[in-house]
């Protein structure tokens, strides 16, 4: 089987002898190849179009100036995306800090600790979080979480006011709430990938630890966590990529204030949110539209970097395990399932 996989096209020589079939197969093969190439071309085409349409803003402020100027003011037609970029990073950072430990704990609990009967139901419940649409998270966050957590946020801000980036008056919508919603939204993907990677830990190693007289937790610490570390980190980064690009839910709860907040409980803005909010008013203003599309480009590049790193980590973790067999990496199946 190994040799067969290694042959490009994998066509055994057996049917080389049937000329009619060969012609039909050539067509079949060309069509599929054209399809694959067409996808590549389409993506490149769209990307080029984005760059062209973003050009009015990029040439006016420069790529560097656009990205790092801390000044986004529509009324003065000044577009520096730094406050948006920072807002995106803050909210995604909060999402990681809250969401990743919970996701990993969930993965460990489901894979290694929980009674077998609970496994299936718990998995489904956690992954159903991925089935709730972004706009519904936004609706819930805006109408329930923001008002209900206002008091809690204020008391947090007051209690921990001595810490940097904490304190001040809480309006309701904030980086924190956006981060919290994002944490919930990335939980299923991080958890699914972690579970998938952890389940590649060979039973051999887990049994080795148990047979040495390790408790469950010690077994997790000695055998499961070290082995799956890079895969879990990769899963967390996929979650980060998800959080960075998340739009509608964040738009509804982040407050949409185009400056860098002084505290985690201040209102802010993100790259994705600004595009949704200002897109309507910008329609007739080429510079403004260009700025929004440029913001989309920054977002695009940011997610590309994060995702490339994440994929590399996850696939490295899987290659180590599945050096043989040629199966599609487990993470891909998990990612497909939760729509990452």
């Amino acid at each position, binding site marked *: *089987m190994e040799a067969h*996989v290694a042959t*490009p096209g*994998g066509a055994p020589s*057996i*049917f080389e002898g*049937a000329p*009619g*079939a060969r012609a039909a*197969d050539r067509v*079949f*093969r060309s069509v*599929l*190849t054209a*399809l*694959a*190439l067409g*996808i*590549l071309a*389409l*993506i490149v*085409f769209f990307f080029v*179009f*984005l760059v*062209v*349409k973003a050009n009015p803003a990029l040439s006016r402020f420069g790529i560097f100036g656009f990205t790092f100027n801390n000044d986004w003011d529509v009324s003065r037609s000044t577009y520096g995306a730094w406050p948006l970029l920072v807002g995106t990073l803050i909210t995604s950072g909060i999402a990681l800090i809250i969401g990743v*430990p*919970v996701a990993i704990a*969930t993965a460990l*609990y489901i894979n290694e600790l929980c009674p077998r009967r609970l496994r299936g139901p718990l998995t489904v*419940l*956690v992954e159903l*979080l991925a*089935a*709730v*649409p*972004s*706009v*519904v*998270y*936004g*609706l*819930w966050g805006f109408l329930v979480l923001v008002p209900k957590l206002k008091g809690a946020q204020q008391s947090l801000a007051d209690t921990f006011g001595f810490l940097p980036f904490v304190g001040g008056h809480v309006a309701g919508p904030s980086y924190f709430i956006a981060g919290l919603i994002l944490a919930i939204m990335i*939980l299923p993907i991080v958890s699914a990938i972690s579970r998938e990677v952890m389940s590649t830990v060979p039973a051999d190693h887990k049994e080795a630890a148990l047979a040495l007289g390790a*408790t469950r937790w010690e077994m997790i610490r000695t055998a499961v966590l070290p082995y799956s570390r890079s895969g879990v980190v990769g899963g967390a980064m996929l979650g980060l990529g998800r959080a*960075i*690009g998340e*739009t509608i839910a964040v738009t509804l709860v982040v407050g949409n204030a185009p400056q860098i907040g002084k505290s985690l409980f201040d209102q802010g803005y993100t790259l*994705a949110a600004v*595009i949704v909010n200002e897109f309507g008013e910008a329609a007739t203003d080429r510079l403004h539209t260009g700025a929004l599309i440029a913001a*989309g480009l920054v*977002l*695009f590049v940011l*997610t*590309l970097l994060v995702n490339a790193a994440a*994929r590399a980590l996850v696939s490295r973790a899987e290659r180590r395990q599945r050096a043989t067999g040629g199966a*599609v990496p487990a993470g*891909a199946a998990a990612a*497909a*399932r939760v729509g990452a």
Partner: protein
Amino acid sequence: MTALPVISARRRRTDLFARGVFAALTLVAIVPLVLIIYYILDKGLGAISWHFLSTDPTGNFLGDPGGVKSAILGTLEIVLIATALAVPIGIGVALYLVEFGRGTVLGGVVRYFVDVLTGVPSIVFGLFIYTGLVVTHTLGSFAGWKGAVALALLMLPVVTRSAEVVLILVPDSLREAALALGAPRWRVVARVVLPSALTGLITGGLLAVARAAGETAPLIFTMGSTLPTNFDPFKQMNSLPVQIFNDVGQAQDRLVTRAWGAALTLVAMILILTLIARTLARRSRLT
């Protein structure tokens, strides 16, 4: 004297503590789902009625706000078109990857791009279509079919990835058996490979549909929004996510209630699709 060594209390406590923490955090992970479903049912169930499902939103500031008929029908139509685009293309690309692309440079590049697409935020797909098709006024300005294309782009990597996973599971021995009988490759694919992977392919398709059905951002930039029911994909169309998004920000209770009702409708549609997909997936794993 007992034959067994003593396990220190500290180790046993640490173990218990770790187990407790993991169990508690798992519970924490499930709380949001329960809360969201509770709120959607609590606030949305009241909104749902035959009137709600069978009338278009009126757009009136006063009086009857109307229902979500056009949004439901719009979502169904758009998702249907998107599926018709994304599923065949996605499976085609997966077939290329599995049947011809293994170990080739082009196969590697295509797979990498599919991975890249998976990570692209949905709003960027919206911008793709906006700059590529809306601004250029290709066949009109905002239109339903453009929203469908955006959703199809979003679904494509999900379909391809999940299709690749199941296609590669079709044993090579099965392919070789058919090829050894002298069957041409396309017929082997059509008669052997695709049928044996069918359940898996349907599952992947359904999951992609579930994902696309809830997307909002790409539609805002591509489809515009309109209140009356419209089946013509070359004009602007309404959709559930966009309807919800537009209603949330309104200060009127009646519109907010409509948003909850629409959310319940949307979540119910997606959950049903997801559960069907999962049941199919489980069945295909069992056989």
